[in-house]
């Protein structure tokens, strides 16, 4: 509960600051928020290492937190910090003067929603969290008032979001009909071993509802447009934080609610979804020229890889998934950092503009290349390790079908490598003159990039991170659900 409260406190502080501080000091708002988040995250780590890792429940069992949950929340916090740092310059742009405060408040609200999603143990709380996490995002997507794409993206987002939440709640109602309760553990016990058509349909709806936020194929179609239309900072936030949070929440639901019908029912649903997601995401990513759209599709296929950690359905899988999320946050944010920096400086976001970038802006292109390699899973960068671990975890599930699945995923990594290399090629190899002049990006942007790049380089080589995550999952309450 500590973290939620802390987050609310920050939210209030930001709100008050934004409301009552004189106009001239508002420029400091982004920095202030960032600092607050940093302090808060530090405290969060304090909780993690504070020894108090036992599960804590509240709201009569509707809410539960544990060491793992705290850890994932901290991971999200780190991501948020980087996003905030990167967005400082954008937030201080003249367009944003009026709405700067709202941006941060909405952002914090969504984060709060994600917290709830993650640690909800009752569907009511879960739904509230879900909506908290998705509705404000619609507003954030629409933030660029004078960009048409922004509006279009917002409309597409809000309509699909509401639709999916409707489907989701429909599924919930079926679940309710089958199980007679909305408490996770009660449902778990109620569903033990039964699979009626209604339940399966309910499950399909639920999965689709969450899959929408995770942008699993075929629930992904909003992703590309929204990512492209939204302001870059929002896009990066959308692509890493909400994805990460939802992935974990997804795991929690599947394990703690439907865990009892893993092998009969949802293993195969997930199997199909993973193959679809990875493949389709890659196939679309090949043909993108707009960098944000490109990353949208790459993030879709990444989501597919993340799902491997869930289908593995063992502690190693959870750890690998969390690790993957962490690494993915860093890699993707590095990429978005570069894109944002270039966009802020020149307003160019097409891959064709990146040709020969190395000649004009070697550092940026270097950071970009590291990000691409990390996303593609090239050693010695973190992405390699996360991919390797998640594959290992998946294979650990043992069935031959999983071997096939992993092989398909591996073959897809070749495709993904291809389009990541296309970016590298554009920046390093193509000889024609670069349209982007040499420029010096703002300190905040550089700071964000440095952090991200450092993460890319060191996360993999430093084993303790992964060890720690695996220890957490090993003694977490999730363990109970994995014994089949």
């Amino acid at each position: 509960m500590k973290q939620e409260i802390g987050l609310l406190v920050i939210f209030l502080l930001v709100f008050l600051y934004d409301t009552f501080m004189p106009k001239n000091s508002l420029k400091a708002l982004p920095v202030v928020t960032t600092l607050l988040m940093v302090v808060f995250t530090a405290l969060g780590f304090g909780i993690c290492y504070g020894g108090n890792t036992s599960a804590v429940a509240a709201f009569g069992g509707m809410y539960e937190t544990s060491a793992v949950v705290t850890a994932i929340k901290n991971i999200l916090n780190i991501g948020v910090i980087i996003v905030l740092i990167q967005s400082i310059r954008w937030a201080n742009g003249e367009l944003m003067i009026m709405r700067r405060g709202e941006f941060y408040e909405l952002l914090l609200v969504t984060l709060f929603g994600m917290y709830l999603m993650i640690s909800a143990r009752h569907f009511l709380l879960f739904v509230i969290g879900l909506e908290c996490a998705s509705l404000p995002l619609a507003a954030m997507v629409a933030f660029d008032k004078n960009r048409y794409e922004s509006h279009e993206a917002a409309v597409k987002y809000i309509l699909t979001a509401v639709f999916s939440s409707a489907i989701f709640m429909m599924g919930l109602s079926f679940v309710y009909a089958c199980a007679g309760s909305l408490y996770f553990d009660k449902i778990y016990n109620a569903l033990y071993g039964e699979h009626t058509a209604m339940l399966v349909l309910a499950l399909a709806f639920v999965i689709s509802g969450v899959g929408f936020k995770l942008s699993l194929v075929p629930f992904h179609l909003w992703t590309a447009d929204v990512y492209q239309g939204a302001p870059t900072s929002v896009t990066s936030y959308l692509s890493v934080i909400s994805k990460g949070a939802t992935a974990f929440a997804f795991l929690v639901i599947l394990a703690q609610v439907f865990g009892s019908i893993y092998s009969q029912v949802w293993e195969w649903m997930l199997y199909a979804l993973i193959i679809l997601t990875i493949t389709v995401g890659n196939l679309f990513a090949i043909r993108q020229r707009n960098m944000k759209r490109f990353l949208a599709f790459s993030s879709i296929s990444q989501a597919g890889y993340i799902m491997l950690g869930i289908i593995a359905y063992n502690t190693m899988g959870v750890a690998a998934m969390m690790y993957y999320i962490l690494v993915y946050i860093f890699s993707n944010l590095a990429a978005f950092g570069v894109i944002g920096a270039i966009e802020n400086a020149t307003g160019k976001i097409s891959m064709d503009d990146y040709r020969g970038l190395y000649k004009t802006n070697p550092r940026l292109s270097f950071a970009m290349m590291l990000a691409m390699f990390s996303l593609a899973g090239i050693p010695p960068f973190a992405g390699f390790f996360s991919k390797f671990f998640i594959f290992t975890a998946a294979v650990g599930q043992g069935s031959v079908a999983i071997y096939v699945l992993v092989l398909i995923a591996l073959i897809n990594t070749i495709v993904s490598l291809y389009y990541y290399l296309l970016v590298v090629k554009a920046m390093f190899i193509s000889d024609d003159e670069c349209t982007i002049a040499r420029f010096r990006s703002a300190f905040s942007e550089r700071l964000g990039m440095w952090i991200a790049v450092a993460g890319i380089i060191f996360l993999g080589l430093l084993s303790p991170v992964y060890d720690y995550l695996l220890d957490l999952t090993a003694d977490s309450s999730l363990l109970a659900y994995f014994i089949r």
Partner: protein
Amino acid sequence: MFCCGLYGFLTRRNMIAMLVSLELMLNAVDMNFVIFNRFLFPGAMEGMMFTLFAIGIAAAETALAIAIIINIFRSVHNIDVRELNQMKF
């Protein structure tokens, strides 16, 4: 009722109309909960509780959607959903 909403949502070109049919769908969900609660599990009030919150959420969603639609109307003077296809492929 849910299907009516579904149908409306998928066929109407006017966004407001789409919103209305979304409302239909959400309300169908609420009805579901209430009914299941009343007839299948009369003991507890969980379904009812859920419905209350769901109504609230639905309201919030509608408000937000309306706001955005107004925004887009401002910029393009048109709320035909089929026109919104600048970004594709």
